């Protein structure tokens, strides 16, 4: 599904965020990316999502090289990848419905299909009751659910989550991770960058540990520390 080869990301200020990363992610896999701040977890997701360009190396999605992606193709590429952000990145002043529907509107879905998909996905994330609320009225956990709903509403094969529980309390974090697990069980490939030790240790999946831009450990059914 995702093959990363000799990936290097060096920022203009000289900081080496990713140092020769090689990683293979199979279809339907669930991977935790863990490691201290500045280890390169977010950068790796950003490069996959194409909000950052790599300095060298390549990423293949289903054998398509991202090095061949033209700027004008980026929006279309992103429609295959759901992205979940720590700060949710919801459109301000709009309702829950409009935020989720936006991901389908950019793909020119007809209104009736938008309605059907949005209703289904809001049901999945447990927000059916709040369709017409403006996002700012909702709690952090609820806003994160909107972000998740928006990320998966068009059924992308890949889901990336950058510290999805970073600003949430333990209980809500747990619910959010359960939700991601559920989405993963529908054969969606999921990559989660996280600091959350208890979750990594409780919901056991493949754990990839990054330190100073290098992969130092990669273990199936791993824990946060080993």
């Amino acid at each position, binding site marked *: 599904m995702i093959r990363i080869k000799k990936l290097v990301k060096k920022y203009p200020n000289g900081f080496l965020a990713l140092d020769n990363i090689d990683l293979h992610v199979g279809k339907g896999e669930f991977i935790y990316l863990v490691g201290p701040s500045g280890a390169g977890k977010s950068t790796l997701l950003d490069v996959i999502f*194409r*909000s950052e360009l790599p300095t060298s190396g390549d990423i293949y999605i289903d054998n398509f090289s991202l090095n061949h992606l033209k700027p004008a193709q980026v*929006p279309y590429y992103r429609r295959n990848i759901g992205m979940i952000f720590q700060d949710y990145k919801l459109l301000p*002043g709009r309702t829950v419905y409009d935020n989720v529907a936006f*991901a389908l*509107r*950019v793909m*020119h879905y007809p209104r009736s299909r938008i309605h059907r998909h949005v209703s289904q996905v809001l049901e999945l994330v447990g927000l059916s009751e709040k369709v017409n609320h403006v996002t700012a009225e909702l709690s952090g956990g609820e806003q994160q659910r909107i972000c998740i709903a*928006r990320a998966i509403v068009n059924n992308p094969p890949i889901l990336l989550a950058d510290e999805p529980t970073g600003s949430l309390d333990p209980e809500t974090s747990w619910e959010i991770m359960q939700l991601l697990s559920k989405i993963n069980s529908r054969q969606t490939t999921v990559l989660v960058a996280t600091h959350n030790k208890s979750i990594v240790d409780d919901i056991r999946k493949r754990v990839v540990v990054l330190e100073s831009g290098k992969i130092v450990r990669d273990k199936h059914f791993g824990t946060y520390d080993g």
Partner: protein
Amino acid sequence: MLNDIVFFLTEAVNGMRRSGMMIVISVATVTVSLLVFGIFLLVSVNITHLANFMASKLEIRVYLKDSVGESDVSMFRDRLRAMPQVKKLEYVSREEGWKQFQTSYPTMALGEMITQNPLPNSFRVFVVDDSQFVSFAKYLSSIEEYVEDVTYGDIMAERIQMLYRFCRYSGYILVGLLTMATLMIVMNTIRLTVIARQAEIEIMQLVGATNPFIRAPFLIEGFLIGVIGSLLSVGILRPMYSYLAIEFQKKVPFVPLVYDPVTLRYVYFAITGAGIFLGTVGAFIAVSRTLKTKY
């Protein structure tokens, strides 16, 4: 497609509602800029009109030699008429000329002083292109077989021509500069509303929206700002001009102003067009700058 258009329209209207004060400021800026633009346009139109009016009063008087007989006069008339520069031609016989002269200056009691008519036969010639007026007059005076003398108010004509040219070119330059200044102002104001929503634009990009898709509602907003701003400025300018023109005419009745509704309509259309153009182009440039990304 229809889906998208409905979405873009609602997005634009909602966007404007959400921007609130920013939009009010944008519209006010566009209105004031277009007002200044419109005032200059009206002044420029009037000066051109005035210069035109004065130029149209210019005539070349061609006095014929006394030796030119009647058949020669009609031959010369045909020759003049065939010249492309000639717009209008009028023959004034020496008798007619004398009569006109006497009615023009009745107090001089010329009849008592001069018993014989001193005037030669002449043609009054009006030219098609005022800019060729002087050179054409000089050319006519070179036709020696018929022409005794040519008068055309030499210096006056040259002055009017210079004024006319000056007005026209300075008008073009001024309107050009003002259009640019207005564009800058409008663009920067709209840019502020775009910057206020930069985060929103970035989110749209992250969700997979193409640049045209993101741009469309902003273009509609710019268009609407242009429409509202220009209609407001025309709404102020029209009654203001009518009032001022009447007042001006009361005080200075001999200077002709532009009243022609067709010309004025053109001016107001131009202002509206400029507003719509500036609003839309301003929005386009403003959003495009924000849309530039690193990937």
